[in-house]
């Protein structure tokens, strides 16, 4: 904004305005110093004592390429690194869990999405200080500022929407509908903003998943296309190739093969990893193609970051599970996509060598990748190593490592984190824990057909790993007494189909999983329950029906979903939800904590919303007595459940 003002007025006027702006910034800073930070400082202290690792998760290079900004979600900081000296020159404290970065077009303002604060920090890149805090939606992550720098678009994974923030007023003007769990955003050529989704669109459990790319026309600030990416989940960073290489959007994704029984782990029987390739075509609907980055006997597990190196034919894709960065030859890719059988590429395991120029090892859990504006270097953030890999794009080789200064020796939890994201422990390196538990231990929202005594039966919905401490036994059938049993030989034999983790590794992994917290619940206002939620709470704990009859103890909500033990009684209960595909009727009572963020519901993912649990799948009142409730009460009950 300031540069534009300077252009408009004379020098004096500009000075005057600059003075005013400086005063305003000072005032804001003072206000922040007096009020905001004090509250947040307490949080930081708590977080610092718990999490000492940096966990670099997003990178942005300044327009001239001399400075690299790193969002470190583990320490609630943004680091500024001098790319010449490869040294950290500033650590700027921001809000909780900074997940994503966006630069204003000129590079003067850096926006930091603080997922757990539900707010965006705006950093003045000259002063390297937070100048203001912008409102945002639930669990805000990926952001992109439009070309003019007037509006900022922010993806809210927990709200399934996109905030449009007017940067002049600092107010959120609109929330646009996005698909399920939008997590990453990018400014594209023209006036497009792209938003990719982590999870598949809600759908009946026996249908293959389909994810969504939301394309916003920044000129109208409205969604123009909601592009279905068939078969895909976990779409992440978006990179756009130059027009001469087709101008495609490249989005790493995972194609889960959850509907076929998981009796193998070879040649992508569980999942494929690759790229969605989206071609914008003006007024016509964008065209979607898919290519795999997996190879015949070696998977490119959990693609994450994507970047196109200017002035080169290279695009870089990181695989957080394979600890690799693949360097794509865009010219060859472009040519391959022109071939008549390009549609088959979505499943071809032998295509990647045709366009992957080089695969380079990275640190553990590589996430974001950024290429310098001159195309000389690329940088990969290795989240579980607290390092930045530097890649020489001229020689396509590793050219150094920037260490952010991790604590040594590693804690058990840290070692567990490294194992959690690594696919190197499974046969053909196909999957990591994180493949099915994205969002650092969440769930993918899919049902999976595991190898069971009867194949194709007992198909169950994936379960979250967030906040599961104290809720054992695990699995819908309750057969796993603890995490160590699950993560040991069982994972080795039936999931990884390999040697699996050693007992020491299992201990580390369990330490990591047990420490997975839930994000702060956006339904819960600071003042406690609102009246509707409070009425819902009364319904949850009610002992009589609307007609005054006493509800038997075992038919009350709180009997099975016991509040003192994370809203689960930790036993198996038959609530009449078994179908003809189940060999058992009793399932472990799931915890209700964070229930709002993890549809679908019930053991087989039949209920796509909380409402459906009672409206469709509780016809005989076996899942609690609910049929006497009216719709208003049901809404209130759900309003309360949303706060757990």
């Amino acid at each position, binding site marked *: 904004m300031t540069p534009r003002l300077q252009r408009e007025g004379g020098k004096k006027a500009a000075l005057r305005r600059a003075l005013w702006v400086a005063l305003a910034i000072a005032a804001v800073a003072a206000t922040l110093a007096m009020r905001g930070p004090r509250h947040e400082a307490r949080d930081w202290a708590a977080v610092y004592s718990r999490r000492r690792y940096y966990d670099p998760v997003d990178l942005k290079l300044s327009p001239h390429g001399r400075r690299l900004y790193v969002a470190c979600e583990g320490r609630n900081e943004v680091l500024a690194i001098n790319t010449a000296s490869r040294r950290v020159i500033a650590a700027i404290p921001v809000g909780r869990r900074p997940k994503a970065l966006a630069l204003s077009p000129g590079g003067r303002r850096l926006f930091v999405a603080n997922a757990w604060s539900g707010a965006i920090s705006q950093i003045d890149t000259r002063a390297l200080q937070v100048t203001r805090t912008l409102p945002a939606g639930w669990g805000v992550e990926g952001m992109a500022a439009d070309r003019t720098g007037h509006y900022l678009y922010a993806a809210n994974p927990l709200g399934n929407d996109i905030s449009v923030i007017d940067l002049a007023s600092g107010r959120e003007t609109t929330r646009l509908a996005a698909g399920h769990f939008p997590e990453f955003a990018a400014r594209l050529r023209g006036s497009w903003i792209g938003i990719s989704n982590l999870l598949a669109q809600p759908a009946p459990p026996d249908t293959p998943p389909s994810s969504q790319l939301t394309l916003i026309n920044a000129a109208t600030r409205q969604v123009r296309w909601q592009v279905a990416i068939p078969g895909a989940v976990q779409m992440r960073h978006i990179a756009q190739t130059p027009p001469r290489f087709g101008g495609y959007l490249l989005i790493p994704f995972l194609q889960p*093969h959850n509907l*076929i029984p998981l009796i193998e782990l070879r*040649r992508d029987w569980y999942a494929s990893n690759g790229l969605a390739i989206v071609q914008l075509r003006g007024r016509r609907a964008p065209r979607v193609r898919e290519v795999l980055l997996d190879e015949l006997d*070696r998977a490119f597990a959990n693609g994450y970051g994507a970047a196109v190196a200017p002035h080169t034919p290279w695009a870089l894709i990181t695989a957080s599970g394979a600890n690799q960065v693949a360097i794509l030859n865009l010219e060859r890719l472009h040519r391959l996509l022109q071939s008549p059988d390009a549609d088959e590429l979505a499943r071809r395991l*032998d295509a990647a060598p045709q366009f992957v120029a080089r695969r380079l090892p990275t640190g553990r859990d590589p996430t974001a990748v950024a290429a310098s504006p001159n195309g000389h270097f690329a940088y990969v953030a290795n989240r579980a190593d607290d390092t930045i890999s530097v890649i020489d794009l001229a020689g396509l080789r590793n050219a150094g490592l920037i260490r952010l200064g991790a604590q040594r020796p590693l804690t058990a939890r840290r070692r567990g984190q490294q194992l959690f994201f690594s696919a190197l422990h499974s046969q053909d390196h196909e999957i990591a824990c994180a493949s099915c538990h994205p969002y650092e231990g969440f769930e993918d929202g899919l049902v999976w*057909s595991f190898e069971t*005594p009867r194949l*194709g039966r007992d198909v169950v919905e994936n379960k979250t790993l967030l906040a599961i401490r104290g809720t054992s036994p695990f699995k819908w059938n309750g057969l796993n007494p603890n995490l160590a049993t699950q993560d040991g030989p069982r994972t080795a034999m*039936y999931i990884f189909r*390999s040697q699996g983790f050693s007992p020491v590794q299992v201990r580390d992994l369990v330490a990591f999983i047990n420490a997975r917290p839930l994000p702060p619940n956006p339904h819960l206002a600071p003042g406690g329950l609102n009246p509707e939620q409070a009425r819902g709470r009364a319904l949850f704990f009610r002992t009589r029906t609307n007609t005054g009859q006493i509800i038997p103890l075992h038919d009350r909500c709180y009997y099975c979903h016991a509040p003192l033990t994370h809203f689960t009684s930790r036993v198996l209960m038959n609530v009449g939800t078994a179908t003809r595909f189940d060999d058992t009727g009793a399932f472990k009572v799931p915890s209700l904590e964070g229930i709002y963020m993890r549809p679908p519901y019930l053991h087989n993912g039949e209920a796509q919303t909380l409402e459906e649990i009672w409206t469709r799948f509780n016809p005989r009142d076996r899942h609690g007595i609910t049929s006497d409730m009216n719709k208003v009460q049901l809404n209130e009950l759900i309003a309360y459940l949303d706060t757990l």
Partner: protein
Amino acid sequence: MDLTPEFYAAADPQVSPSGKELLFAAMRRRRGHWQIWRMAAAGGAARQLTRCAADCQRAAWLPDGHIVYTLSGGRAARLGSQLYRARADGAHPHPITFGPGNFRLEAVLRSGRLLVSAAAPLDRRAAAAPTRALYTLRPDGSTLRLFRWQYPAHAAPTSARELPDGTVIFVAQPSRPAAGPAAKMGKLAWFPPQAARAALLPGAKPGLDSVRLLDGRRWLLSGSAATSGCAIYIYDSAAKALVTRVYQAPRMACAQATPLEAQPAPWIYHSILHLQMASGRVVCLNAYRSTLAPGGSWRRGRLAQVRVLALRGGRRVTLGAAPVQPDGSFYLRLPADLPLSFELLDARGALVQAQRSWFWLRPGEDAGCQGCHENPALAPVNRWPLALKRQAGAIALGLGRTASNRAPMRPR
């Protein structure tokens, strides 16, 4: 130093993961059988592990304390040579391959799977089969799969090795007799990592048939070069050329050089078979998919049934037929440890496609295939197979009424 002075012949030395022991095949007398022996790498007395009535060769260490080896000839010869697995002291030998095809152990891959060579296709005429190919197998004998699939024409791979980067090197032995001694010699070929197509290794001489890794870049090649007898070379994999000849023994027939050092242990593979069971299950996702069909797929609705053949006592018997669901899926329970083969039939019972080879299921094995003779480079289609959705369970064929169709409870 001759480690085995007391033997008439010795071959296939395998250094244990610790680097302190050797496993090798040897015959004491000229007309005896090859057996598997074990000895300290430093030398000393060898311990006989096998008492084969035929030849036992090509042994390998398994990371779980077992060994695996190839038995050829003898009574088992009807189906050609087979792989056996036994404890490290040679006790409890049992077969892990069952079909025709002359299986021969090549190596244990780092993933824990076995790399074996056998006739391609794996059929009855194995002995006369002109070509061979590499397959992989879990060390419990389950999940037989073709390893990559494009080989130099008429070449039988032998002496395959896996290098740490995933490169597989083998000797392409000409499978047809050709004129001249040099033409009979195998040529080194390789599968670059992730390549479906094998190529001859540039710069290598014919007759070299053993490859060992020295370091990341240099390989140890050895064999019997036609002119100079036995020789050992160092090969620069980056320059793709032989750089040094380190050893030459003109009088000896061949050499298999192995560095005596600790080997990277392959992964332990945890078997999930249930050896007490008499059957295994196979689910086919889409029998319509076939590279033999025009356009890669049979016309929708054409397939009605799958017929299962078995090889019992050297004879083909029909076990029965089961419906193919409209989406091409079928789900069967079939006798374990028996050579099996599928035939796809149309609604009138006419043959649409016959499997050209034999496979088997191990007891309690759950095998899955994407299609019948499908393109192995395609990832599966994510769809709930109707055979699993509509059928209550696997359709049992060739199992007596007494055979238990219920699998034991299995955690997951």
